[in-house]
């Protein structure tokens, strides 16, 4: 009788241990997912900030060449290269926390409005430039954030 009670106790103990392990696994996965979501939120926030800065700097430039010069002077821009002749490819760093620098790749498409006959510039006074800014986190191939922008430039 005593032996049967001991066996029952041990079986119950093992069963509870298995249930505890299951609970630990579920809670651990929940918190890991939560941390992943928080990191994604941080990267998205940083990407939005970078896209806004690129939009502001490009809006202040009269043409793509001037925009490239201004990006080159920015501390966050690590590398800059031409993107198929109608845009720029930037590698930018964002200082997230002390010692942590997130790296982003930013593609800027710069499309100037063409007149009906295909010549550059819609009018003698100004031209409309359409811009699309795509921000990629690290080496990812899908942009984490895309910003469409546009503004009028005074004809040179």
């Amino acid at each position, binding site marked *: 009788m005593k032996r049967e009670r001991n066996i029952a106790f041990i079986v119950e103990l093992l069963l509870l241990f298995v249930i505890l392990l299951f609970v630990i696994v579920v*809670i651990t996965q929940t918190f890991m997912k939560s941390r992943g979501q928080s990191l994604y939120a941080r990267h998205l926030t940083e990407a939005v900030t970078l896209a806004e800065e690129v939009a502001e*700097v490009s809006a202040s430039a009269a043409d793509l060449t001037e925009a490239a010069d201004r990006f080159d002077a920015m501390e966050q821009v690590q590398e800059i290269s031409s993107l198929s002749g109608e845009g720029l490819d930037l590698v930018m760093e964002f200082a997230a926390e002390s010692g942590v620098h997130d790296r982003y790749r930013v593609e800027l498409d710069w499309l100037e409005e063409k007149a009906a006959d295909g010549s550059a510039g819609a009018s003698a006074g100004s031209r409309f430039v359409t811009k699309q800014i795509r921000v990629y986190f690290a080496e990812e191939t899908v942009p984490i954030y895309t910003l469409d922008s546009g503004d009028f430039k005074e004809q040179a």
Partner: protein
Amino acid sequence: MKKIFGDIISTITVAVLFFAILMLVVFSAVSYQRSVKISDANGNTRAVLSYIITAVKADEASRVTIQDTDGMQVLVIENESTGYGQQIFYRDGKVQENYGRLGEPVAVDDALVIGEADLFRLDLKADNLLQITTDLGSSYVHLNRG
């Protein structure tokens, strides 16, 4: 002897279970703390910069200038039609703002606090590009007017 061995096993098992629960609580608390910290950083990091950028871009008709008053940089968003302007400056570790008459000294004692910062600097990178730098980052603002 067998009974003693059984008792030891039971005690160790209970202790291990208790330790596992304790580690689970600690891990959960640390993970939650990290998530909250990231969430707070996302929300507060650029609050001061966002406010200033919004103020600069709010009125297309305003003229934006940087003035040096007694060694203190003041960002002035002028509304020439009213003769008043919004004045943003850094003093005593805080970014502050005041609304006052153009051409008169900044009333620093009447200013409202926008936020705290260890650093606040204004640079005109070009005629139409303003850089605002704080210890939590910097931002660029395109000025539509000079």
